[in-house]
C-alpha cells in the first residue's frame, strides 16, 4: 500500500504540536530558550524525520512529544486530547538503549507492559511475541551486558513496541551503533513497517544522519539552532524499498545538504553578529582535523572545491563527522560553504602551503579576527595587570548566550585552538588563562 496517498483528514492526526516553546532556566535563574514556536503534525501512516545539528533542540522536541517534558508555552495534542505526561499509546526508543542492566532481556521487555496492569501470563505471551518479532528469540534470559550494541537496541525496540503503541518516538536509535549494524537494524525495521507487522501508526525519528532521514522518512523536518526553530520541510516521496544509488535518492540527499549548509553559514554569520560574537558556538574540531581537511581539499582530485557528499565518501567518513570540520573551516574563513559544496579561500591555500610557524601565525590571525570569543579572552588578559584570568569568568559569560554543554564545548575548543595558535595558555590545575610569557 502506498502510505503517502492516505487521506489527510483530522481523524488521521496522531499528534499535533502547536506553537510549542521550551525555555530552560539556568542556575542564574534567567531563562534560556531551546525551542521557539514549533508547529508539527504527525498523521497516520507516516515516518517523519527530525533533522538538525546538536543543539537544535530536536531531542527536546521529541521528549515534549512523548510527554517527558512539558512545553513552556504552546500545546501538545495526542489523538485530539491534550498531553501532559507519558501516555498509553506512545513509546520511546532511546539513543543509548536505556536498558536496565539488572534485568534480563525478557524482564526488560515486560517492563513495557507494567503500566497496563495485565495478568502475568498475558504479559509473558506478549513480551515473547515482541521478542520474536524483533528477532531476539532465544535471548530471553540474557542480560544486556552479554549482548552486542545492535542486539541491545533490538531489546529497546521490543520494549517499545510490546505495548502496541500508536506513536513511536525514536531518538537517534541507530547512532550509537556501527555502520553495518545500524544498516541491518534500519532495514529490519522498515520491513516490519512496510509489511504492516507493527501496530504503530506513526513514527517520529530524530536523527543527524542525512542519508538515514532520506532512507526512512516520508517527510524530513529541518530544525535550525540557537534556539531551535523550524527551517524547512522536505517531502520524500520515493517508493520503498529505497536505494542509495538511485538518482532520486541522491537528489533528495543533496537537497537536504544544501538546506543544512546554507543554514549553517547563515547561522555562523548571525551568531557572530549578536552579543559581540559570544553566542558563536564553536564546533568540536581539533586543529589537526582542520589542517587535514584543508590539505585534502587542496590536493587532486578536488583542487580547492568539492561536494560535501563526495568528499565524505572519499574518506569513507560519515557526513555527520565531516560537517563540523567544514563548519570550522567556514567559520575561520579558510574555506567557504555554498549549497552542498565547499571551496578553499585564498587564506586556506596559503595555510596549506606554509610551514609550521607560518601556519600558526595565519591561524592566530584568523582566530582573533573571526572568533570574537578568542579575541575577547586575549583582550581581557591584556587589560589585567598580572595577565591572568580565571576560567570561570569566561564560562559564565558564555553561558549567558549558549546552553551549558555548548558553552563547555566552545570553551574547550577555544582553549585547544588558542593553545595551538599560542594566543594564550591555559593551566587546568589553576583553571586560569594567561598570556604566554614571550611570543
Amino acid at each position, binding site marked *: 500500500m502506498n502510505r503517502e496517498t492516505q487521506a489527510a483528514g483530522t481523524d488521521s492526526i496522531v499528534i499535533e504540536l502547536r506553537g510549542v516553546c521550551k525555555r530552560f532556566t539556568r542556575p542564574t535563574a534567567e531563562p534560556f530558550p531551546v525551542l521557539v514556536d514549533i508547529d508539527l503534525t504527525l498523521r497516520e501512516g507516516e515516518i517523519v524525520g527530525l533533522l538538525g545539528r546538536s543543539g537544535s533542540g530536536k531531542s527536546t522536541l521529541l521528549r515534549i512529544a512523548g510527554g517527558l517534558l512539558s512545553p513552556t508555552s504552546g500545546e501538545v495534542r495526542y489523538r485530539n486530547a491534550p498531553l*501532559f505526561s507519558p501516555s498509553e499509546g506512545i513509546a*520511546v526508543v*532511546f539513543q543509548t538503549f536505556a536498558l536496565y542492566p539488572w534485568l534480563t532481556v525478557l524482564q526488560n521487555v515486560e517492563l513495557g507492559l507494567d503500566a497496563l496492569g495485565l495478568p502475568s501470563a498475558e504479559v509473558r505471551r506478549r513480551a515473547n511475541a515482541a521478542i520474536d518479532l524483533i528477532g531476539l528469540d532465544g535471548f530471553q534470559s540474557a542480560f544486556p551486558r552479554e549482548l552486542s550494541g545492535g542486539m541491545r537496541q533490538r531489546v529497546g525496540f521490543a520494549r517499545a513496541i510490546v505495548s502496541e503503541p500508536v506513536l513511536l518516538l525514536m531518538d537517534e536509535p541507530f547512532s550509537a551503533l556501527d555502520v553495518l549494524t545500524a544498516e541491518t537494524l534500519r532495514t529490519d525495521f522498515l520491513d516490519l513497517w512496510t509489511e504492516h507487522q507493527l501496530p504503530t501508526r506513526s513514527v517520529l525519528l530524530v536523527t543527524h544522519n542525512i542519508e538515514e532521514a532520506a532512507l526512512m522518512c516520508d517527510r524530513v523536518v529541518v530544525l535550525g539552532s540557537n534556539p531551535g526553530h523550524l527551517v524547512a520541510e522536505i517531502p520524500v516521496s520515493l517508493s520503498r524499498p529505497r536505494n542509495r544509488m538511485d538518482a532520486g535518492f541522491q537528489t533528495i540527499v543533496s537537497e537536504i545538504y544544501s538546506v543544512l549548509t546554507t543554514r549553517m553559514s547563515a547561522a555562523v554569520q548571525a551568531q557572530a553578529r549578536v552579543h559581540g560574537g559570544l553566542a558563536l558556538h564553536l564546533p568540536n574540531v581539533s586543529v589537526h582535523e582542520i589542517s587535514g581537511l584543508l590539505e585534502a581539499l587542496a590536493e587532486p582530485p578536488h583542487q580547492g572545491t568539492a561536494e560535501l557528499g563526495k568528499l565524505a565518501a572519499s574518506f569513507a567518513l560519515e557526513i555527520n563527522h565531516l560537517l563540523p570540520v567544514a563548519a570550522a573551516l567556514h567559520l575561520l574563513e579558510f574555506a567557504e560553504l555554498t549549497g552542498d559544496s565547499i571551496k578553499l579561500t585564498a587564506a586556506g591555500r596559503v595555510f596549506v602551503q606554509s610551514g609550521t610557524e607560518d601556519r600558526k601565525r595565519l591561524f592566530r590571525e584568523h582566530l582573533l579576527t573571526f572568533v570574537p570569543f578568542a579575541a575577547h579572552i586575549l583582550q581581557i588578559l591584556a587589560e589585567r595587570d598580572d595577565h591572568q584570568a580565571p576560567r570561570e569568568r569566561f564560562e559564565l559569560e558564555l553561558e549567558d548566550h549558549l546552553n551549558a554543554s555548548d558553552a563547555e564545548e566552545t570553551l574547550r575548543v577555544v582553549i585547544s585552538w588558542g593553545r595551538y595558535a599560542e594566543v594564550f595558555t591555559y593551566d587546568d590545575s589553576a583553571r586560569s588563562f594567561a598570556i604566554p610569557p614571550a611570543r
Partner: protein
Amino acid sequence: MPHALGVRLQRIGNAPRLADLAAVILLLALMITFGMAARQMVLPFSLGHAPPIRLAPSALPMYTLRSVARMLIALLASLLFTFTYATWAAKSRRAEMVLIPLLDALQSVPVLGYLSFTVLFFLSLFQGSALGPELASIFAIFTAQAWNMAFSFYQSLRTIPVDLDEASRSLRATGWQRFWRLEVPFAMPGLLWNTMMSMSGSWFFVVASEAIAVGSTQVALPGVGSYVARAIEERNLGAIGWAILAMSIAIVLYDQLLFRPLVAWIEKFRVEQSAAQTAPRSWVLDLLSRSRWIQRLRVPLQSALARVARARLALPEWRLARPKSELSRRFLDIAWYFGLAALTAYLVLRLAHFVRPTLSVGDLRTVALDGAITLLRVAVLIVLASLVWVPVGIAIGLKPKITELVQPIAQFLAAFPANLLFPLAVFLIVKYRLAPAIWLSPLMILGTQWYILFNVIAGASAFPTDLREAAASLRLGPLRRWFGVLLPGIFPYFVTGAITASGGAWNASIVSEAVSWGETHLSTAGLGAYIAEQTAAGDFARITLGVAMMSALVVVMNRALWRPLYALAERRTRLD
C-alpha cells in the same frame, strides 16, 4: 518461556544431592541461631540484677552470637533509614535543604558521643526490660553505619542516568515500581560497598557499646564487649585471648555468609555494560545456586517478589509535576526558609540554656587545648601509617599472587575491633613502664591503619599495565618510578583510605586515650580522654562541649584537607 521452566522442574527430580543438604543445613543453622539470640533480648531485666558475665570460654559462643545479632539488627535499621531518609532527601528539594546538611553533621559526631546521650533515654523508655540497654547498644551501632549508607544511596539517586530515568517515566512506572525497579538496583553496588565499610567499622562499636557506664548507671549486656570488660576488671589475659578468637571467627563468618554472596550476586547491577574481567565469586552463592531444593524455593519466591515490585502502587508518586505558579512557589520557599531559621534559633537558645549554668570560658579553653592535642595525634599517626603502609601496599599490589593472599587479611584487620587488643597494650605499657602520652597514641590507629593498606593495595593492583610497561621501557630510575609514576597513580585510592582511617582514629580516641587494666588506669591528655572522663562522671554539659568540639574538628579537617585532596585526585587522574 513457561515451557522451558516446566521442563527444567521435571528434570530436577527428587533425589537430594550433597549441595542440597549443605545448603539447607546452612540456612536452618542461621535461622535457629538468630532466633535464639533474638528471644533473649526481650527477657525481663533490671539494672544491677543482670546475670553476671561469665569468663568461661564455654560462655563465649553465646555472647558472640548476641553481639553478632545486635550487628544484624542495627544493619537492618540502617537499611530502613537509608531507604526512607535518603529517598526523601533526593525527591524533595525543600527536605534536601535540611536533611543533607543534617546528615553531614550527624556523620561528624563521634559514634561513642551518641552513646553517652542515648543510653539513659533508652533505659527510661523500656524500664525493666532488657530491650532498653539492647536498643541503646543497637542505636550506637546504627550511628556507626547509617550515615554513609544514606549518603551513598542519596548520591546514587541523584546520579541516575538520564536515559534510564526517561525510560522509566515513558513506561509510566509508578513511584513504587520506579523505586524497586530502577532506583534500588541502580544504587545497589555503591550501597553494598558502603554497607561493608560500615560493618567493618562498627565491630569496634559493638564491643565498645555493650559495657556502658554513664555516671552512676552501669550496664553490661551479654556480649563479647562485656566479656572483655569483665576480663579487664579481673586482669584475665587468657579470657581476652578467647574473646579475640571468638570475634575473629564471627567476622570471618559474617564475611563469608553474608557479604561474599552479596558481592558476587550484585555484579549484575552494575551499569557499566561490559563484562568484568574477574567476577567476584562466593562459595555460599555457588552452593545455593547449585542446590535444586533452594532453586525450587527460589522460583516462587522470586516471582512473588517481582509481583510486589511490579504492583502499581501509586501512593508516593513523583511524576512530572504540573508547573505550579511561580509566585506561590516563591512564597512557599520563603515560608520554608523562615520556618527553618526560627527552628534553628530556638534550638540554639535551648542548647545555650542547657549548657550555660555549668560551663565557663575555662572549660572552652580546656576543650580547645585537648582538641589540639588529639588533632596533632591523629595527624602524626596518619602520616606515620602512610609512610609505612603506602610503600608496602604498592609493593604488594603490584604482585597479583601476593595481593590475592594479603588483601583479605588487610580487610579482616580493618574490620577487627582493635579495642579487644587494648588490654594487651596496657599490660605491656605497665610492665615496661612506658610513657602513656606516647604509647597510648598508636592505639587510635591500630584498627584503622589497615584502610590505608588495603586501599593502596587495591590502587596498585588496578594500576594500568601499559603505564607500568611504559615506565619499564623508559628505564626510569627507582626515584622517578615511585614519585613520577606509582605514587600519583595510587593517589586517589590513598586519599580514600586515609579519609576512612582518620575518621576512625577520631572515633577511637574516646576509648584509646583512657584505658584500664584491672585497677590500673592509664590516660593521657586529649579530647577523647576528656569525653570519656565526662561520660564516666555523667556531666552532660561537658560531654556536649567535648562532642561538639570533636565534631567541629572533624568537619574542619574534612573541608580543609580531605575534600580538596579528593577533588584534586579526581581531576588529576582523568584523561578526558
